């Protein structure tokens, strides 16, 4: 009978996605127990939001999820618009869609880099982080910031697109499509990738449903659930797309699902740019932010992030500040319910790529 020992993975560990820690108990090098230890990025967003005007929260919300901030802005804006009963202009819907999908592309390329890095392939991270940077440059043009865009706000978007931006987005889409051939060659069609991930960290369909998984984990297990399709927001209702699914539910399937989602996002960007009204307002008339009050009510607004369902539960009490905002990050469930169970039985060497394969984003559950 072997003796078990405890090991902290994180917070200062190269294999952990962000400032976060997992306490694992090992026997030999097999995990017998895993426990997430969050809180290193806790900034009390939900508390801070209660003390700020609706518009001031614009500065806070993107910071809830750093790799893909726009989903927060969109979900927050949708919640406020829902409570106020505001319909946003058509063009704003398309711009939101493009921005959200571009953010997803940036996030997925970023994810690919970190996933490949945890498997020991640093070339892909050199490539994909570099390619992601061009997407950040595009964001930089529309809103003047690379990471925290604060571009989507209640009522629509903050500015109309700069001239020629759509073309540059299409150029970028084309560029990424070309690069994806190389990505496939070096990583997704690499035999090493297959051997390291096939059959690893399986979440079956039944488990995924029981544990409340969303996003790629659920799709990789064979359930085509996607907020973009089920409860269309922005301009997704006008676009034509299918949700990719795979059946195995293992690490490989999740990686491939993200690879397919990247294709889907690029396709959606092209569709949205094509269908977007060329002119028109991009922001509804909104009340003075210092006085504007939001009628009392409760609402739940959700969007599809690259990790799954991302939602804002917002309660207003007829004042200028939200009464309570609860943020649902997809990683919350993925970490504390799924990862803790899936990690059991893994080898120590696989812990960190399993975590990245589930796409754990600590700021989302620390808030």
């Amino acid at each position: 009978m072997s003796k078990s020992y405890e090991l902290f993975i994180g917070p200062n560990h190269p294999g952990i996605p962000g400032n976060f820690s997992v306490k694992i108990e090992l026997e030999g090098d097999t995990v017998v127990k895993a426990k997430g230890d969050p809180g290193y990025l806790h900034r009390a967003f939900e508390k801070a939001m209660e003390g700020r005007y609706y518009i001031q929260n614009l500065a806070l919300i993107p910071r809830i999820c750093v790799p893909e901030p726009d989903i927060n802005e969109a979900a927050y804006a949708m919640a406020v618009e829902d409570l106020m009963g505001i319909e946003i202009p058509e063009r704003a819907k398309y711009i939101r869609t493009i921005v959200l999908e571009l953010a997803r592309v940036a996030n997925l390329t970023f994810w690919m880099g970190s996933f490949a890095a945890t498997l020991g392939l640093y070339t892909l991270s050199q490539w994909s982080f570099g390619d992601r940077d061009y997407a950040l440059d595009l964001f930089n043009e529309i809103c003047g910031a690379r990471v925290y865009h604060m571009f989507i706000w209640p009522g629509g978007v903050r500015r109309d697109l700069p001239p020629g931006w759509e073309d540059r987005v299409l150029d970028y889409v084309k560029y990424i499509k070309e690069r994806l051939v190389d990505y496939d060659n070096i990583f997704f069609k690499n035999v090493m990738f297959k051997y390291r991930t096939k059959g690893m960290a399986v979440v079956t369909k039944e488990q995924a449903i029981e544990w409340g998984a969303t996003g790629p984990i659920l799709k990789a297990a064979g359930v085509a659930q996607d907020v973009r399709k089920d409860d269309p927001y922005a301009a997704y209702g006008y676009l034509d797309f299918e949700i990719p699914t795979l059946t195995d539910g293992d690490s490989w399937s999740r990686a491939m699902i993200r690879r397919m989602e990247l294709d889907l996002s690029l396709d959606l960007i092209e569709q949205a740019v094509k269908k977007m009204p060329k002119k028109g307002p991009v922001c509804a008339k909104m009340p003075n932010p210092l006085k504007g009050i939001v009628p009392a009510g409760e609402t739940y607004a959700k969007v599809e992030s690259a990790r799954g369902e991302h939602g804002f539960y917002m309660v207003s009490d007829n004042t200028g500040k939200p009464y309570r905002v609860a943020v649902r990050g997809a990683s919350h469930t993925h970490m504390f319910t799924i990862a803790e169970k899936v990690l059991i039985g893994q080898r120590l060497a696989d812990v960190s790529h399993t975590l990245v394969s589930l796409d754990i984003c600590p700021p989302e559950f620390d808030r």
Partner: protein
Amino acid sequence: MEKMTQDQVRTIANMLRKRSLWMIHYCTGCGAMELPPTMTSRYDMSRLGLAPFVTSRQADILLITGYLNVKTLRRVITVYEQMLDPKYVIGFGSCALNGGVYWDSYAVIKQLDRYIPADLYIAGCMPRPEAIITAFQDLMDLIDSGKADGYKRYKRDLAYYKENQRKVLG
């Protein structure tokens, strides 16, 4: 060799030190998001002789990338104390200076230099890669001129730092 004064030794040491700085790979806050582009192909900070490194014993630079949660602060102090002299701290963005956007948060410390000494600050929320590279170059200049003496201050004013640390960490 005997003729060289201590000052001359220090000058030469500083000259050498600044040319090979290893930063510890610890993402304490959201500013870390701009580090991957800085490290990888697009901005490639290895041009400057910088490289990310995973263990605290071997690292020279500690980046406080943004806000510092109280819970993280405890780990950061451990990491900082584990690092060997000379060691340098760069505070990223608004949060390390005065709390930033989390100025009213109960969980985030407001001034980095009350707990560990910082050698350089970068403005921005978050600082863009160009600013990070500028900061590294500035830090090299500071090392060269011997002004980056945070680790000495930490030793000298240990009582002050420990007192402040005790206050928030309990």
